[in-house]
């Protein structure tokens, strides 16, 4: 292989995009050509500098909301021409409600809450945890320190799942309140984002995660294995939804299927949250 030919393959080699044979040819050439080796090193450093300097960006939250609004407006425009659709939509909503079984669901806009519901409590808890120096009472990624720490502080033993291999390292835990009820707050990280996972016991509840958004935070909620959980973060929706499914799976001990119709579920929150057992 000539230096000229190699020059066009250098990036492919560096990015591990060459097949084994081509990579072998490049390596054979590099072993005997000091000029190309230096070039590879230069390219490696340049790539590192570019990657460190230009980072992936996060779209502003309002843009996400605007895109959603725009899509709905677009849908509405096209639906005006199709009068049979409302009936169809009603059927779909009925099916959705039927599909989630034991849940008592109501579809309402969660953008403007009155502050009296669980979503508001969860949001408030999350914001509180980030404002003060009280994110965790027990800071650890060690299962063996977090779980025993809750013993004696709560009247239940919260699950403390480990999702570090899934990219959600555990930061720690603390006691918190949702409504009047003392709950376990588990704190996880995802890149620079913090996720609060509130957990408390629930009776005869079994459901798939549902999502909501408020004040720029995404909230995922569900119940499994005798526990109800609320996950909240400023993390993007898809990552948080992934996290919620991990939680649901861990709690129930079985795989939980995602909503067949999850975008509708983004507007669904339970009207009747689980009764919080009094201590």
């Amino acid at each position, binding site marked *: 292989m000539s230096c000229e030919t190699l020059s066009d*393959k250098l990036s*492919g080699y560096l*990015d591990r995009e060459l097949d084994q044979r081509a990579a072998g040819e490049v390596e054979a050439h590099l072993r005997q050509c000091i000029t190309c080796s230096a070039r590879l090193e230069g390219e490696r450093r340049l*790539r590192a*500098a570019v990657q460190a300097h230009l980072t992936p960006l996060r*779209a502003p939250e309002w843009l996400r909301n605007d895109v959603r609004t725009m899509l709905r407006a*677009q*849908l509405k425009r096209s639906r005006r021409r199709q009068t049979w659709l409302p009936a169809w939509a009603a059927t779909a909503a009925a099916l959705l409600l039927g599909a989630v079984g034991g849940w008592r669901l109501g579809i309402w806009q969660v953008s403007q809450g009155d502050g009296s519901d669980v979503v508001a409590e969860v949001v408030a808890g999350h914001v509180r945890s980030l404002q003060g120096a009280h994110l965790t009472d027990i800071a650890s990624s060690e299962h063996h320190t977090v779980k025993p720490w809750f013993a004696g502080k709560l009247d239940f033993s919260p699950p403390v799942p480990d999702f570090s291999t899934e990219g959600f390292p555990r930061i720690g835990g603390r006691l918190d309140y949702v409504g009047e009820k003392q709950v376990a707050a588990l704190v996880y990280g995802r890149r620079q984002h913090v996720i609060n996972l509130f957990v408390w016991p629930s009776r005869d509840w079994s459901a798939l995660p549902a999502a909501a958004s408020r004040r720029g935070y995404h909230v995922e909620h569900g119940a499994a294995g005798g526990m109800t959980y609320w996950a909240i973060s400023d993390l*993007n929706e898809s990552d948080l939804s992934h996290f919620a499914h991990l939680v649901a799976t861990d709690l129930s001990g079985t795989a939980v299927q995602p909503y067949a119709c999850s975008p509708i579920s983004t507007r669904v929150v339970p009207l009747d949250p689980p009764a919080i057992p009094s201590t």
Partner: protein
Amino acid sequence: MDPSALARFEETVLPHLDAAYTLARHLLRNEHDAEDVVQDAYLRAFRHFDGYRGGDMRAWLLTIVRRTCYSWVRQHAADARATEFDETVHEDSRTGNDPEAEMLRGALLEALDQAIERLPVEFREVVILRDVQGSSYAEIAEVVGIPVGTVMSRLSRARQRLQRALPVEDYWRS
């Protein structure tokens, strides 16, 4: 377009909003233009959603974002030259306490910015897709509409151009 299409669209396409925004922002180098273009691209994507026939959803979306960026640039060619320098795209997130090293690094990063800015757009887009978005060569090939071999040679040449355009390259040895 029926409501289930919106549901599927939000489930599959909306999660790639950050990737769409990143590409638009780096191609257009202006925050407000990127926001407009992303909205426009999503509207186009939604309208053509029926035509989506499987495959990599992110690549499909980025293809639309890229095209929307370029048609936007063509439409706004006159005032595009006057776009303000987008500070936040080039934020240096690293901090340090060594003023001399900081100065050298600052000089390097400035040179890097200029070098990337001066790259012909066909080189710039492959660098952004690869090194900022982390796209595979196959994904880049789909988004840009060129063979994988061309992606590779273009990327090699883009990186060589960047190296030549930079001052003493030893600055970033660490």
